[in-house]
């Protein structure tokens, strides 16, 4: 498969959130604001690229019987890196993402791409796949976070968009857990409609 195809694969056709339904836990938990979503997306993308790179590089050296522990060690290394760097330079963001940074270790997308793609593809393709998946994940997070932040606090990236009156009486449920599920349902519905239209045009 060509590099470009691997790259774009994760953005729409196999979008990790909307199509594969992977990585739902951080997706639902940290999308309360666009800022958190971008931070989480960047962190996950970095880990994804590094782990895919390393797993692909070592794919002929890792014995298949112990491959999962090996992936976990590789991923955990990069997550620890991200955790420490974020704590040092972006303490605010680090505090608001909280436990979900360490939890990237068990993120299904990263483990899934290591097992399902990097394990059996050359390095360059694996990196391209990781970049695409990372962008797809970040994009999905930003889409949901946009709706949740707009409805739940009337702001976007902490800028007041809907006016003071709305911000005083926002639709609080949007930034609570049920709001995440309800909005995800609607977004998935729209995504499926788009998909059907695209399929019908073929």
């Amino acid at each position, binding site marked *: 498969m060509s590099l470009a195809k691997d790259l774009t694969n994760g953005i729409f056709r196999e979008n990790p959130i909307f199509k594969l339904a992977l990585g739902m836990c951080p997706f639902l938990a940290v999308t309360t604001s666009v800022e958190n979503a971008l931070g989480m997306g960047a962190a996950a993308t970095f880990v994804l690229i590094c782990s895919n790179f390393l797993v692909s590089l070592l794919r002929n050296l890792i014995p298949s019987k112990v491959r999962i522990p090996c992936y976990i060690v590789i991923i955990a290394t990069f997550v620890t890196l991200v955790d420490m760097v974020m704590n040092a330079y972006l303490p605010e963001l680090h505090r608001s993402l909280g436990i979900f940074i360490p939890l990237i270790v068990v993120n299904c997308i990263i483990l899934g791409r290591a097992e399902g793609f990097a394990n059996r593809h050359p390095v360059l393709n694996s990196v391209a796949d990781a970049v695409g998946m990372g962008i797809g994940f970040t994009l999905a997070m930003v889409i949901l976070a946009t709706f949740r932040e707009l409805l739940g606090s009337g702001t976007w990236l902490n800028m007041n968009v809907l006016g003071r009156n709305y911000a005083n*009486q926002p*639709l*609080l*449920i*949007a930034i*609570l857990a*049920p709001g995440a599920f*309800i909005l995800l*349902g609607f977004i998935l519905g729209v995504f499926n409609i788009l998909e059907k239209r695209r399929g019908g045009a073929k």
Partner: protein
Amino acid sequence: MAEPRRFELAISPHVISNLDTRRIMYDVAVALLPALAAAVWFFGPRALLLVVASVAAAVLSEYLSLKFMKRPVSFVLDGSAVVTGILLAFNLPPGVPVWLPVVGSAFAIVVGKQAFGGLGHNIVNPALLGRAFLMASFPVLMTAGWTAPVNRDGDGTYSDTHGIPVVELAGVPGADAISGATPLNVLKQSFDLDSGAGAVELEGDRAGADEMRLKAASMRRALYGAGTLKNLLIGKRGGCLGETSIVMLFLGGIYLVLRKVLELRLPLSYLGTVALLGWVFGGGGWFDGNPLFHVLSGGVVLGGIFMVSDMVTTPVTPRGRIIFGLGAGLITMIIRRWGGYPEGCSYSILLMNLTTPLINRLTRPKFFGEVKKNG
């Protein structure tokens, strides 16, 4: 040439009943009218405005969702959206802005009902889901919008939102502190005083603790007084729009029973459980609660007649219906006594709605001749 009439075979039952969705729904809507009249009488014409806005929003969003999903638009006339709209408005404080029931109804219909596939497929009562949605979204509006009933009898027997008349209120020391709340709010305040008294006693202030306990007990005595209970019965107290006038709600309930729409197992087991548990732990200690107060206050009568009996979201088997009522009553009383909210009626019904498929399966009647699996 017309086609020859085909010989049609239908499976049993062959009894044709005129009990269809539209008739049931409009019967329910009619049964809600007395309570609506009481709401307008006690809370003014604004109550009517809220109900109309809610119904209009419900019907409009039903129409739009059906249109969007390319389903027959005629479903909008089956009356279920009207009932959902009225019930949602009945579950709101009278002082809320008009857009609140509009938002709530739209959510109830679109997410609570149509997203699951329309009438008959919704897993929880849409009106209650709408209320829970508003409760989570606008907690301030939903808990501060209580207005006192219109004072029509002069100052002598004037009652505030808590419904306790002046005569009964005289027995409570420092009674000003309990204004601006519903009867169940006052009950909750008395429970808080009781637990506060325990903390004060631990600090060594025996006299202060006794004073707090005395006040809590006198608050409860005022709530259980004949004057208060009379106010609760006719609906002269603060509360959600449609839940206050117990007499009018029962009037609607009797109409539904006569029209054979309401089956008595559900309301009776629900209200019975609330009364029994109200006596067991609804007061300060054990076995000293007032069952009558617990049935008359809050929304259990509205819930018991019109929401516990929703045909879609409650069990179909006779035994299952009794289990449903018992469970909902238990959850209501636990929330009232120990929960964070003063009233637990709507959450109890929502939670039990979720167990309905399990109850149905548990109480499935045996086929004739069926043998127990490991019997």
